[in-house]
């Protein structure tokens, strides 16, 4: 058991170190997220009531697209330089290593968005209750985006131009997350309970956390063979 844990930690450590050495690329998804949201008041209308109704959807769509763009890099460099082969030949189970990679990906792409979101929500005149709900949905939703996305990336990593296919594969699976999350935030802004939507998201997260590493590992083995 300790061997698995050691492998998990080493891989997370390695990916974070690599991300840190590539700080420039690291900032891109976050920048995209911020730019999309800040352009809305300029492009649509600075009127508060309108922005307040748009805010949950705008922030979540930006988060979703930003996650989608950052997905491609999850296995790309490891595939190109042979590190993925070495991982597949590790005595440790591949699903555990996949989970480590997804965690590292979330830490560098999902977590910064989570921290930036309250600021952007204020910019769109979202009330405090809404911000709280937004943070909760992002906390549960962004790991979900990474986990589901990892299956799609693993399937398309062997192709030179897998980008469009990846979007087609993953986007339909992202739609339920978007619906439940924005619905929860809208309900919170209106002062209604949003437990139901949160339970749905949490259930999806539990499902993705237990099943997607196996699907991703199998897809990676196919891509490698």
């Amino acid at each position, binding site marked *: 058991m300790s061997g698995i844990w050691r*492998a998990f930690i080493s891989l997370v450590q390695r990916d974070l170190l*690599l991300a840190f050495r590539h700080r420039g690329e690291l900032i891109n998804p976050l920048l995209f997220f911020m730019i999309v949201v800040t352009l809305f008041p300029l492009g649509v209308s600075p009127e508060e009531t309108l922005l307040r109704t748009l805010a949950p959807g705008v922030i979540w769509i930006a988060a979703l697209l930003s996650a989608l763009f950052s997905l491609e890099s999850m296995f790309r460099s490891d595939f190109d330089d*042979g590190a*993925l082969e070495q991982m597949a030949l590790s*005595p*440790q189970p591949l699903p555990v290593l996949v989970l480590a990679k997804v965690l590292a990906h979330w830490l560098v792409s999902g977590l910064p968005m989570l921290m930036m979101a309250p600021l952007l929500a204020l910019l769109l005149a979202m009330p405090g209750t809404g911000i709280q709900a937004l943070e909760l949905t992002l906390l549960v939703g962004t790991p979900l985006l990474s986990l589901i996305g990892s299956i799609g990336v693993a399937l398309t990593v062997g192709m030179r131009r897998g980008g469009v296919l990846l979007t087609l594969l993953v986007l339909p699976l992202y739609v339920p997350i978007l619906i439940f999350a924005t619905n929860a935030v809208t309900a919170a802004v209106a002062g209604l309970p949003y437990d139901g939507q949160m339970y749905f998201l949490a259930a999806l997260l539990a499902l993705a956390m237990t099943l997607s590493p196996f699907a991703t590992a199998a897809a990676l083995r196919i891509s490698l*063979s």
Partner: protein
Amino acid sequence: MCCVRGEATLFEQLDFALTAGEALQVEGANGSGKTSLLRILSGLTLPDEGEVRWRGASIMERRAEFHGQLAYLGHHLGLKLELTIEENLRLALGIRSVCAASRLRSVLEAVRLDHRVDLPVRALSAGQRQRVALARMLLSEAKLWILDEPFTSLDSAGVVLVQTLAEEHLLRGGVMVLTSHQTVSLNGRLRKLELA
């Protein structure tokens, strides 16, 4: 110990076994399936027919045990260019859960890279990168080495080094499969397989 039977398109009816202390050099023209054979032996690719066995059991059934004793060195070395030599080795072995800190120095000395542990791999030449990958292989303490063209981009000293390391590995009871266009001399413990 190890037995393969055929992949339809490239080779058929291929059947061989290796015992401890033996090395097999796979020869053949470009495109004759040398790399495919090595990938099948390592478990990266499935053969279209037949199976690979390690200590009597199919490698697919006991994948973790087999991969714990396998070191595979392919065309892509699996090194991270942005990390230093030491980080590369430490983390790659961590992912395999091998504790290598104590032997790191001596192995780097053996491949003559001990004076540049803090250099990022990006700054190394192709031959030096190959040496880093060799160090990783030595540190993994694998019984079975599968090497795809281990001599490419190595200088003549490097070629001698690989042959010495290979001989030591075989003396310890290791097994080795390699492809190479060079003539390899390993004190008569070398068998050859010609792929048509």
